């Protein structure tokens, strides 16, 4: 077993320590009011919330997997028409914050609410996560085993399920985990669509009754559910295997009579996930553009871009270190660090935000209400997003190349920097983009922790909706979607790059 470089260990341990802040905060709250907390958990309502939350998580994860996988498979492996166009529309909803998606659906379908509404909106908002992960895995897939299977007489569907699926299962389940945790921690869309989950109950405990103990008790239950979900995913997916092969030839599936139905299916999803919400945003924006203060808009844009840029780069560095640690060195401690960053991922942003308010104001006042503390919050909230994106590119760098480099006399750590990182760089950039665009959309922690004078597109959007002026909120939402759309499109190109390399 090789030992990890000191820098990797230091970055990893720091990230793990930071994630213990919210956990420690929850512990403090619970110890202070354990009787109240117990009473809160033992209510019948908790069971009801558990049922609601579980149902939504399972339903959204399943449908996002089906939609995202079908989009990825059809646009990378088959001869479906407009493949690259459909790939763009499949990735684009990632740029639309789920609360904006919910708002635009409510504006189109008056009175939309309940389980079905929450399921629909969250499925549309999260399936790009699956689409991108699976596309990247499919594009880098070696097709020789598929070809062998075809020559042995297996049908197209049999090849898909028996040969292709097992090879992308790791990427698919990892993105499924992201979807599940996203749904667990989601508040904005769920509140607008009025479906009761744990996270909504936690927000209501804070907002309705300023009841921090009940909120903490519910958050701990949520944390336990998260651990269960992660455990389940780990058990099912197996480990990442470092690839030993170079890129191979691609096999393209001829859809035949299914070409038209496949295009219709992709078109239908595109209408609901992209065309509808974006056109409603454009209509509102035109109505609201009259009273728009351009200086305020540009100021918010700059705030968003600098926070997202800094957070993306910072979290990318931490994420790369942790991914290297747990994949290349496979140490027990490295895995503990990875787990701890995942565990906190579904805890609602308001809990993480308040934990850092408590910690920042009372322990580290010199960074309180500065961008530093906000960046730490983003690190806690979005490190898993980076890890999910980083694991595959790092695991897929052929171990052979590193061994060659070492046999030529380059020290192990230097080989890591000179060989592994450059090859994985496109994947690292993709993960950084993903984090950046997630930060762009974040609201609750940003509101609690930002420097008072710093505004982002998301906080301005929030302000305008508080003012009840949806038409005035729309230009901010639209600009947010456009800005977040750039990394989303870059991610899509990145995922499909290996594909075009081979095809051309």
């Amino acid at each position: 077993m090789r030992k990890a470089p000191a820098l990797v260990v230091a970055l990893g341990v720091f990230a793990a320590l930071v994630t213990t802040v919210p956990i420690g905060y929850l512990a403090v709250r619970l110890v202070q009011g354990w009787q109240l907390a117990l009473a809160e958990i033992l209510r019948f309502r908790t069971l009801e919330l558990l049922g609601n939350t579980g149902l939504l998580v399972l339903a959204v994860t399943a449908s996002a997997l089906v939609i995202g996988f079908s989009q990825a498979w059809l646009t990378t492996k088959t001869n479906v028409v407009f493949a690259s166009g459909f790939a763009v529309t499949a990735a684009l909803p990632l740029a639309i914050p789920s609360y904006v998606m919910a708002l635009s659906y409510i504006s189109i379908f008056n009175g939309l609410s309940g389980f079905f509404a929450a399921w629909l909106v969250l499925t549309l908002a999260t399936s790009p996560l699956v689409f991108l992960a699976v596309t990247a895995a499919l594009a880098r897939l070696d097709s020789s085993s598929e070809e062998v299977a075809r020559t042995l007489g297996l049908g197209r569907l049999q090849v898909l399920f028996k040969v292709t699926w097992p090879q992308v299962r790791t990427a698919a389940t990892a993105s499924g985990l992201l979807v599940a945790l996203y749904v667990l921690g989601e508040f904005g869309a769920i509140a607008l669509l009025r479906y009761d989950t744990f996270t909504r109950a936690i927000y209501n405990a804070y907002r309705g009754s300023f009841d921090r103990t009940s909120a903490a008790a519910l958050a701990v239950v949520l944390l336990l559910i998260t651990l269960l979900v992660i455990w389940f995913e780990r058990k099912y997916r197996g480990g990442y295997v470092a690839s030993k092969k170079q890129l191979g030839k691609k096999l393209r599936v001829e859809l035949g009579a299914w070409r038209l139905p496949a295009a219709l299916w992709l078109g239908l999803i595109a209408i609901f996930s992209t065309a509808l919400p974006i056109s409603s945003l454009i209509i509102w924006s035109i109505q609201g553009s009259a009273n728009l203060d351009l200086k305020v808009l540009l100021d918010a844009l700059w705030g968003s871009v600098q926070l997202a840029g800094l957070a993306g780069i910072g979290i990318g560095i931490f994420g790369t270190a942790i991914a290297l640690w747990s994949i290349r060195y496979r140490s027990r401690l490295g895995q503990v660090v990875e787990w701890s960053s995942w565990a906190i991922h579904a805890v609602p942003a308001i809990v993480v935000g308040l934990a850092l308010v408590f910690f920042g104001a009372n322990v580290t006042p010199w960074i309180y209400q500065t961008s530093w503390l906000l960046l730490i919050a983003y690190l806690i909230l979005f490190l898993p997003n980076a890890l999910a994106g980083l694991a595959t590119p790092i695991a897929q760098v052929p171990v052979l190349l590193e061994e060659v480099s070492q046999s030529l006399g380059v020290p192990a750590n230097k080989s890591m920097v000179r060989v592994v990182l450059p090859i994985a760089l496109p994947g690292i950039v993709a993960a950084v983009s993903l984090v950046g665009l997630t930060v762009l959309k974040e609201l609750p922690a940003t509101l609690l922790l930002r420097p008072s004078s710093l505004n982002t597109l998301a906080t301005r959007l929030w302000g305008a909706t508080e003012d009840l002026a949806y038409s005035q909120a729309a230009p901010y939402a639209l600009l947010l979607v456009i800005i977040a759309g750039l990394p989303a499109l870059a991610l899509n190109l990145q995922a499909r790059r290996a594909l075009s390399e081979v095809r051309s």
Partner: protein
Amino acid sequence: MKKTLSYLVAGALALSLTACSNPPADDKNSITVYAGRSESLVQPLIDSFQEETGIQVEVRYAGSAELAAQLLEEGQNSPADVFFAQDAGALGAVSKAGLLVQLPDSILEKVPASYSAADGSWIGVSGRVRVLNYNPQKVSQLPQSVFDLAEPEWKGRIGIAPTNASFQAFVTAMQVIEGDAKTLQWLEAMKENAVLYEKNSAILEAVESGAIDAGLINHYYWFARGQEVGFENLTSKIGQFASGDVGNLINAAGVGIVADSKAARQFVEYLLSETGQRYFADQTSEYPLIDGVSAPVDLTPLAEIPAPAIDLNDLDRLDQTLDLIRAAGLI
């Protein structure tokens, strides 16, 4: 590669320098205000306060409840000097934790005692009235009491916002006046009859669009919408219940001092000055609370609102209110 990387690092550092400015030191000439009211609404007033007094005001805008939670977590180390909240509940929660300073009598006596905290820890700044927002084409005769909405004829026609602070304050008032049993009965009827929304504004929108026939909201939402789109373009109207009905509750937005200083007091005094009070009356159609400033002409004077007789200080039993709302299955 190395060069690009060094540019990247330099760029990141430059960005971080501009993004990380420390909050100003708390000298006498600058204060920090946590404002739960909207920026577009109060910032112009704060700007004119800064111009007139030369006191620098750093404002942190967020929801009243989130700011209250933030103040509770910050405890004694809060950077805030003043908390300007949308509703009495948020101020009450912060006051209960002992984080608000007792206001001097010179400030407290500006406003009738029923719009401020009994212990003098916060003071009302502007008043708002609960109203029935209704579509006159669908509702020809206004219900006499909010309890009439429990009748089966209202099934699916009335909108409420059970997670909203103003609605919860209204339910507390109902408990105080009518008792728990009758309140629970009404809430359970609402579970049957009402369409649930997240906010007052969403109710207004639903009444305007015809999705529901009526809803329980605060009066100024209707005025704000009228000013945005033109009163002649509004489909809905607002009305009151019969005299003394709890559905006509008058509530207040208020302000409390977290860290006492001359500048903080000056700020509170400014909100309660004629300029400040006139501003709220004109900009948000809220009720001024000091003597000598009259409400906007199109508003029924506060004294003529058929409001229930209740002291706002009795509205701090939110826990029990939430228990009832939960028991009825509304949240």
